[in-house]
């Protein structure tokens, strides 16, 4: 593993062989490559195995409630635009409990990067079906097999208006790192759904499955065709990996807010109350 200024020597509680180690490595490499000051980086998460990630990075660690990383991250970014804000979590966290926030965060378009560690199963609560679990997979709470259809996060993101949609793989730290770098540079909401095996609870989507069932798209390809992106999102065998869609981000949530209208980046904590405005309204 390459050493970065984001390394943090806390004991890590993931299972040996977990895909999260690789995603953490890609994230640290990306942050380092971008030359970001760790004090200016906030990694926010919800609850789950992947959501423990902020604790394993040397930066501002924000670990909120299950499913709520996106509203939390949105609030942080809009309060201090100079921070680099990353929201990270698993498929259950972001697409299940946080499904509503996922859709609306995309519509809102805050300048944050959303990393979803998608292992198609619940890990922390021990092996139940998640919103991306394949039909038929037997779990402790679906002993006769999952019956609901898996959600397609890429397609959902595209249809909600996301301007950066990518799928990466824990099996390729270098290419995943490259995507994270581009996502952070993207001035607007960026989704990276990252396939990763759960070595303990998912016996279907294993490391072998990941190698066999995915193919990388050409990194240099033009990804600005939305219909092509939608088609790619619906492909399944093999699943395409890479930047599925990228276009101009348009106005961000922050840019649309009154405090930043005049391009004044002063964080909200440094702004005094506008007593004169109150007096004006009382005149």
């Amino acid at each position, binding site marked *: 593993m390459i050493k970065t200024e984001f390394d943090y020597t806390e004991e890590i509680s993931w299972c040996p062989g977990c895909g999260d180690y690789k995603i953490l490595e890609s994230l640290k490499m990306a942050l380092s490559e971008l030359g970001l000051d760790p004090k200016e980086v906030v990694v926010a998460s919800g609850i789950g195995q992947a959501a423990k990630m902020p604790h394993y990075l040397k930066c501002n660690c*924000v670990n*909120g409630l299950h499913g709520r990383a996106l*509203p939390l991250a949105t609030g942080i970014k*809009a309060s201090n635009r100079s921070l680099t804000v990353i929201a990270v979590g698993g498929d259950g966290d972001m697409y299940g409990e946080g499904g509503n926030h996922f859709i609306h965060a995309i519509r809102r378009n805050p300048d944050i990067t959303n990393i979803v560690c998608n292992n198609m199963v619940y890990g922390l609560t021990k092996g139940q079906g998640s919103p991306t679990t394949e039909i038929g997979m037997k779990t402790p709470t679906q002993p006769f097999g999952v019956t609901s259809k898996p959600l397609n996060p890429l397609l959902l993101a595209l249809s909600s208006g996301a301007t950066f949609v990518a799928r990466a793989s824990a099996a390729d730290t270098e290419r995943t790192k490259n995507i994270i770098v581009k996502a952070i540079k993207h001035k607007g909401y960026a989704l990276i759904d990252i396939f990763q095996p759960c070595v303990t609870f998912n016996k279907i989507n294993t490391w072998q499955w990941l190698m066999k069932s995915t193919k990388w798209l050409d990194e240099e390809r033009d990804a600005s065709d939305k219909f092509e992106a939608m088609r790619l999102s619906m492909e399944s065998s093999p699943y395409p990996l890479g930047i599925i869609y990228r276009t101009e981000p348009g106005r961000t949530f922050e840019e649309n*807010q*009154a405090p930043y209208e005049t391009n004044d980046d002063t964080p909200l904590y440094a702004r005094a109350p506008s007593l004169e405005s*109150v007096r004006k309204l009382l005149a």
Partner: protein
Amino acid sequence: MDMTRAPGSDVAISFCAAAGLGLQTAEDLTRQMLSKAGYYVFSTREYMSRVRGGNNSTQIRVSTQPVRAYVERIDWLFALSPELHSNITENITEETKILADASVMEKEISSLGRKMIDLDLAKRAADLGSPKFSSMIIAGFIAGIFMLKEDSADDLIEKRFSDSDLSEKNKKAFRVGLKLGEEYVEGKPVLKIPDKPGDDEIFLDGNSAVALGSASAGCNYITAYPMSPGTGVFSYFARNAKLFSSVVEQVEDEISAINMVVGAAYAGARAMTTTSGGGFVLMCEGLSLAGITETPVVVHLAQRPGPATGLATRTEQADLELALYAGHGEFPKALYAPVNVESAFKMAGQAFYTAHKYQVQSIILTDQYLLDSGYDIKKPDPSAIPAPISPIKTESGYERYAFPAKGKYVSPFGVPGFGKGFVSFDSHEHTEDAHITEDRSLRKGMVEKRLKKLEAMAEEALPPIVLGPKKYDTAVICWGSVFEPLKEAMEIIGWKKAALVACEQVYPLSDEFCKIISSPCKKIFVEGNATGQFARIVRSLTGEKADELVLKYNGFQFTVEELVRELDKLLEKKS
């Protein structure tokens, strides 16, 4: 028992109409022109949960002395739509002058055994060019019965209608009404103009007061999911986002609303969310998150009757216990209950102050009645609201949850990106530097660290407002918006050795309040709910039981008259 103030000092006007009829213009103009003319004016609304139709009413009380409460008496009724509700029909007496269009209302009014005065509005308005002028004729009529000058509302009309042609037509309609009104009172105004020191006053309702108080405290991040009656404060902020330089976001649900402000406050914003009971319940987990992460957050909880959807546009005070116990686990919070418009401004500021000083959550409990009621108040001073507390510039090695120094209650508050330290935040039980821990002694220490703040918060708790005789044998206790009707009722009763004790802060309780409660006086709690929630909380905190409860829970605020009846009975009984 005389139920109201001296005759000739106070006129109660009610307007009734279906939603969407545009009577708002008449109401606003009446309020503004009478206030400008020098009268004391109070206004309150009650409305059905529908966009058009139904039958809504507004009461405007005009008085020669300060007036701040809702009465059941109706002196003048302007009825534009049939099917008046019982809150109106029950209070029509022989004294009530009913003004309406005979073609619309005659049948209904005569079925009530009452007579009406035909204003012939439809025809008069049509003669002027549009049925929309009815509203202006009514406003003019009211100006007439108060014998105001015919140009007394011209500036207000011009302000309302920027189109000069439309403005002229409305002035004409106003004068048509004015003439009718003058003729009706035969040149004798229904009320003398008092000596009111007018310059320094402004009409404010509860919604504006909460918003302006919050803005004065520096609120610069507000979220909401639309829900009556919590939306008014949010709309006020949305309209004035540029002036306040505030982030204003309507979110996808109340869960997002609270989590977003928690994130914002962690990063240093002064953040608030506004909602009603049903939305507040969805916020409870987020409130608990703010609790364990010691993030200063203000929640405006605008109460309406429940359970569930309840009465969506009505008033109640039944979310006090919900607010007190909101959020799983144990963490301190502060509860404020503004008693009137001035108090709404002040308490909003106080809520921010406490939230930031102690890194806790403040809840402002208002209700539909308070938010939709207004009167002229002395212009509040925004600089009287405590200035925001700035975050510290962190040093390397900063720990967000460091155990406080001796004599202190909180860890220094740092924000990410300001200073040399990392500022972290964890919903788990955590170490001093905000990482997950299951260490038993650390857990115990962190629980105690959070709860210890309550000691200082209690010391700083606002004392109750105490009115009436210095020596009293009965305390009539209320919280929130019951205060003004109760105060007027007590004045009418003549106090009878009873004091009025009103709490603007309902948790933690102040020493002053606890002293009153543990004194040997008789205790009567007056609350807008069905079970006496405040009485129950006070008993659980002090061991002192209420002697009597006066409760109301039909969706309407107490009227002055019903409080006079109830309290007169109870205060008679003791002597």
